[in-house]
């Protein structure tokens, strides 16, 4: 049984429809990746699941319960936490406070505490009382991930955590993911970097123009299929 499932999920910004019947499923303990070009609707999908955007209640199921109509705090309370696109740290809060605020709405016991987050990303301990704005991009991304983990979620949604970061920094951040997986959490990773996505994920969904155009096990998908699903054409070589 899937932990999270979307069924014919649609979403719109005013008159502009961004999702046209998206079906995805995430199993317990599974890591999936969602790939797709800019504007494909990946962030909209994440915002829908996390409750930032309201949807048809039955179009998103969590443990078989319709949650599409719930606001973000209710979604978090059920155990779904999000690392939003662009990190979105709170500039008025220090690094430590940014982490602590992650457990404002959900304080369940679990592997993640301030100390274990500092264990995961030791640099954050050194900079714990700095304002979050004083950190480098990679460190900020660590805070954003740590902040989401503080609620000990069953599902972690990560929207483009490698955006704008140097490759070595991206590698450092992804190095933390095996430890997160070990806790039994399901992970949804939104990535534009296809190679990175295929490396961490069990399964991959590819999106284009608000629809899922391809899905499958990461090791089963061919470069050509992905290329077609990603760009909607097979005339160009994948970079």
């Amino acid at each position, binding site marked *: 049984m899937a932990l999270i499932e979307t069924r014919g999920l649609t979403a719109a*910004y*005013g*008159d*502009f429809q961004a999702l046209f019947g998206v079906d995805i499923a995430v199993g317990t303990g599974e890591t999936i990746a969602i790939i797709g070009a800019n504007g494909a609707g990946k962030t909209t999908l994440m*915002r829908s699941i*996390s*409750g930032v*955007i309201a949807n048809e209640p039955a179009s998103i199921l969590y443990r078989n319960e319709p949650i599409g109509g719930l606001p973000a705090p209710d979604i978090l309370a059920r155990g779904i936490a999000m690392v939003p696109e662009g990190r979105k740290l709170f500039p008025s809060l220090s690094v430590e406070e940014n982490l602590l605020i992650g457990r404002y709405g959900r304080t369940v016991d679990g592997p993640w505490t301030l100390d274990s987050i500092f264990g995961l990303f030791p640099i954050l301990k050194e900079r714990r009382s700095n304002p979050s704005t004083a950190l480098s991009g990679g460190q900020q991304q660590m805070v954003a991930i740590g902040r989401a983990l503080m609620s000990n979620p069953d599902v972690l949604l990560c929207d483009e955590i490698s955006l704008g970061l140097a490759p070595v920094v991206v590698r450092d951040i992804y190095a933390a993911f095996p430890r997160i997986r070990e806790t039994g959490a399901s992970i949804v990773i939104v990535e534009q970097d296809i190679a990175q996505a295929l490396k961490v994920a069990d399964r991959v969904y590819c999106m284009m123009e608000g629809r899922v155009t391809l899905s499958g096990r990461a090791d089963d998908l061919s470069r050509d299929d992905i290329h077609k699903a990603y760009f909607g054409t097979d005339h160009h070589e994948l970079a």
Partner: protein
Amino acid sequence: MTMAIPSFTVETRTRASTFSAIAVIALLLLAFAAPFIVSRGVIQDLFFILTMLVLAQNWNLLAGYAGLISVGQQAFVGFGAYTMFGAVILFGVDPVVAILIAGAFAVALAIPTAFFTFRLYGPYFAIGTWVVAEVARLLLAQWKALGGGTGTSLPRDATRDMMGVGFMRDLFGMKTSEAGDALTYWLALILVIATIGFIYGLLRSKQGLGLAAVRDNEQAARAVGVDAMRMKTFVYLATAFMTGLAGALIYVQKARISPDAAFSVTDWTAYVIFIVVIGGIGTIEGPILGVIIFFLLQNLLADYGSWYLLMLGLLGIAVMLFAPRGLWGLFSDRTSIQLFPVRRVLKGGPLNLTHKGGPHG
């Protein structure tokens, strides 16, 4: 060579507006003839309605179009009125001329006021304008030649010998007091026409388009080259001028002034805000409808004193919450009637985000 202009002109005229143009002309002729038709009491009521309408149109231009929410417009009513009193009492100027001087002085006050208050962020601008009005009130209360804190009256012969009064007395056989009321009424009527004409013209002009852009998105407007600050300053000074004229005119008719009355936030700002909000902010028709409703309510409920104001406050809140474009907005949404079509017809409208994560209900 003449060339047919292709159909790219933005349409602002509607069929209702052609019809209403004819109706408006008929109405104006009737309005000018009113002093010969109706009693003096009615003329005084009409004078009140017209002057409140001028104040309301000006506040609407400020808040509804320029995004400048002032709760200090009483500064210009009071300052205009005091300027007029000063010119008449201290310099023997004719009250009608003094009204024009008052308009100029109101602008002179508006320049430093804008200089100070434009430094304040949106909501604080509102209170800033109020402080300036208070300063003006307190300073004028120190002016002993005009009665200090208790105020003073216009000398009787100043209004009796006012420009035009003698002429009307001879021509129409009016009594002096009647002629005085008719004169102030006509001046108020002219001021209303001029105010609405000015605002209508402004909104239909290129500047008006810039103003709408500034209101909707100041940064975007700046990006396309609209100088928001200049637009706002211009509107602020223009409304100060017209508000000052109205203030002086009101006090020519009242003939008695005191700082507390002339700078009353209730009389010259609260009522005016309710007129605009209830009628419909951001439309020219709104204040017209609003002032009529306001007048009817006042006559119906004036005996109830503070209950009346309390109710007006509740009504204003309710309208703001449930019909933010006022009664005229409700009406014109149902009927698509616009008497003063300034809104360019452009279907679609801004993106309406179905956010629920933001401040959530």
